[in-house]
């Protein structure tokens, strides 16, 4: 394959051309609250408009479909948005206050009868009120300071009234064309499982005013192609059959760049790729053990062996670009001697036949899940496994495919060490990850016995989501991070980027704040 040697600069943006873009998995639903899944988000982000626009660099919010930032009351339970006039959906129906209200009524409450879940970013939603054609008010039962940011994410992408009537099937593969949106691209064609085509809306004229580029998108359209085989995607890109791919693996970066491919490593600005010790597990309930295991992990070795400069070693629980980031450089130092000493101290002094520590007849054995969407999770865990083995702890890697990992991840019996990450450019991200009302990475609370693993975490999280003032929320997030460091509950490994590869003719590629591609301003040089 010849190298891509097209010049990287020069030329002015010009309309035209269809971008061929590869995803590793096919999308599963276009229901915006479920757009967290990468393949879904890559589409939803480019076909929907949102009330607000968040700058991916500064993380500041700007007006978009809302003419201005919302007015809110003091305790952040009421938000008033002014809707920009003249915005239409691709079926011609208007995007007005009533439509916006209906969108958030669905996203904030969900509809189990249609199998449409509630958005994880909208909590305590009480209802909406359409004041006039351009004004809508949202109310909450408890302070919802994260709501304005939530309206800027693709999980709050706006859809037409007709689309709001759809059930889960209507948002699913096979009926993509029935999802009507107001974004710069609209869905024109789909081949279930392999391809989705979107084409430009010539009349699009309501881009975020914050952007330099206005009017229609430059691209004629985008073909989202799916191939589960990594080497085929990369091969297609390198050979010029495709224009871009999501997810270039770390070991391939150098080779791909040599071939002239541009890499975009977009930080995801959320919680770092990390492992969580679930404190309700009897072994891990002991803080000394958690500290020992924390010291046993050679994080630098993991990053050095498996990743590149695009994957910086984590310096805090949150990514350095995330809201509320607190630096704690020395917190997770690799110190196997210390680890051994702590384990001895905790009573794990005996060894069994295979050299593993035992206490009261119980072997020091824990099981970790594989976070299949995260980069090289299996390899990362294999190295952690090696590290643990060196201090006499046995780490089992939970076997099974994606569904199996998901299901097992909900069982404390199956998975005691939980590997994951979440991306969202808001303080609320910590609640998404650890709150018992959301993902509950610790499986912190036992419904039946009422027992808590670490109740203080939940208390702090409630202050994060329940405080009206940004200052209070920032303080709570900082406190949470300190708490995790003190209690050795979470070991962040590295800052996880989304690494995209594009051919050199693809210009002005960028992503939204958590790394989903934004193709509105992309153009093709020839």
């Amino acid at each position, binding site marked *: 394959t010849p190298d891509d040697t097209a010049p990287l600069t020069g030329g002015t943006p010009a309309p035209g051309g269809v971008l061929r873009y590869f995803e590793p998995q096919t999308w599963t639903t276009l229901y915006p609250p479920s757009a967290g899944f990468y393949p879904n988000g890559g589409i939803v982000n480019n076909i929907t408009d949102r009330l607000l626009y968040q700058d991916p660099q500064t993380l500041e919010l700007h007006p978009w479909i809302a003419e201005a930032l919302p007015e809110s009351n003091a305790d952040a339970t009421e938000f008033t948005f002014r809707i920009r006039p003249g915005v239409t959906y691709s079926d011609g129906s208007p995007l007005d206050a009533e439509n916006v209200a209906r969108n958030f009524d669905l996203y904030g409450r969900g509809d189990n009868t249609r199998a449409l879940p509630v958005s994880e970013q909208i909590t305590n939603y009480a209802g909406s009120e359409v004041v006039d054609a351009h004004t809508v008010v949202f109310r909450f039962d408890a302070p919802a300071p994260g709501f304005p940011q939530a309206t800027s994410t693709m999980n709050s992408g706006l859809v037409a009234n007709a689309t709001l009537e759809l059930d889960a099937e209507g948002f699913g593969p096979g009926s993509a064309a029935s999802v009507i949106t107001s974004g710069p691209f609209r869905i024109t064609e789909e081949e279930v499982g392999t391809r989705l085509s979107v084409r430009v809306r010539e009349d699009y004229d309501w881009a975020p005013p914050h952007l330099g580029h206005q009017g229609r998108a430059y691209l004629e359209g985008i073909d989202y192609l799916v191939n589960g085989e990594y080497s085929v995607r990369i091969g297609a890109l390198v050979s010029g059959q495709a224009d871009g791919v999501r997810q270039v693996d770390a*070991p391939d970066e150098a080779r791909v760049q040599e071939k002239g491919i541009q890499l975009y490593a977009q930080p995801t600005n959320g919680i770092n790729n990390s492992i969580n010790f679930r404190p309700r597990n009897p072994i891990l309930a002991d803080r000394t053990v958690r500290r020992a295991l924390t010291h046993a992990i050679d994080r630098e070795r993991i990053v050095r062996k498996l990743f590149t400069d695009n994957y910086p070693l984590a310096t805090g629980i949150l990514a350095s670009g995330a809201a509320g980031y607190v630096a704690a450089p020395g917190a997770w130092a690799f110190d196997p001697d210390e680890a051994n000493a702590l384990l001895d101290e905790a009573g794990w002094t005996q060894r069994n036949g295979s050299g593993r520590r035992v206490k009261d007849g119980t072997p020091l054995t824990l099981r970790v899940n594989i976070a299949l969407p995260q980069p090289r999770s299996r390899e990362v865990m294999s190295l952690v496994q090696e590290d643990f083995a060196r201090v006499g702890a046995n780490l089992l890697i939970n076997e099974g495919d994606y569904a199996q990992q998901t299901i097992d991840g909900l069982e404390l019996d199956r998975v005691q060490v939980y590997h994951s990450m979440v991306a969202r450019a808001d303080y609320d991200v910590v609640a998404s990850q650890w709150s018992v009302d959301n993902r509950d990475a610790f499986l912190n609370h036992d419904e039946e016995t009422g027992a808590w693993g670490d109740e203080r975490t939940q208390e702090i999280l409630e202050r994060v989501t329940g405080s009206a003032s940004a200052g209070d929320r920032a303080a709570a997030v900082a406190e949470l991070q300190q708490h995790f460091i003190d209690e050795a509950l979470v070991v962040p490994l590295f800052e996880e980027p989304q690494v995209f590869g594009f051919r050199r003719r693809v210009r002005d590629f960028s992503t939204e704040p958590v790394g989903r591609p934004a193709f509105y301003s992309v153009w093709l040089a020839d």
Partner: protein
Amino acid sequence: MSAVTAQAAPAPEAPAPRRHARRRAPRVTTVVAAAILGITILWALVPGLFTGHNPIDGGETAPLLAPSAEHWFGTDQIGRDVYSRVVHGASRSLLAALIAVAVGLVVGSAIGLIAGSRGGWVSEVLMRIVDVLLSIPALLLTLTIVIVLGFGTVNAAIAVGITAIAQFARLSRAQTVSIMQADYVQAAYGSGGSYWGVLFRHVLPNAVSAVLALAVLQIGSAILQISTLGFLGYGTPAPAPEWGLIIAEGRNFVATAWWLTVLPGLIVMAVVVSTHRLGTALREAAQ
């Protein structure tokens, strides 16, 4: 006479010396095949003799190193020595392949034998069951079996073996039906033999050779199928080495680190081809 004549019919037209060469040629390959199998068996029994590297802890070694004098097959995605993993994986992989083939062979042949010798409704019922087995997607079947039996190499092997039952059953039934027509089976009944007696003493030994030919072929596909399960996470638990898993895990590096799939893959091929070769040689020798 006809067999000999037909088998090498053009020979009379060939000059004599070549005939000599031809008769010896297979021996060389047979010896090579035996040597390959011998070495792999030694790998399985005493892996420590063949490699000094730790197969499950790569230490500080860089990942994805190309093959070199230090690391014959290079290093894998987390820096472990691939050759050492292949050597240490031999016992597990060979065992798994044997278990898989044995399950398919034993159960399948039993079904085929009974169906072929009993005929009537017994045969119909058994063969319809086999049809059902053949109809259910292998992936679904193996996954369920593994989940029921529990994860692990042996269970994955058993699951793969169960999916192979149908093929063996069909083949052995065809064999059995024709053997049942042989005079010596009738003669055995005439000698006062019981159904099971005749089945075990006469039908089984005569049916088994063709079935074994398929079994040899199955060894290769068993290793690969177990690898598929391993790759999906239903096979050998990490970090234990297993050939199929090594190959499967290397798939993402086909372009960057070809040795990860190619070298262990070649070992699998060598073992399968050698087994095939040796099987053929044994059959020829028996005739």
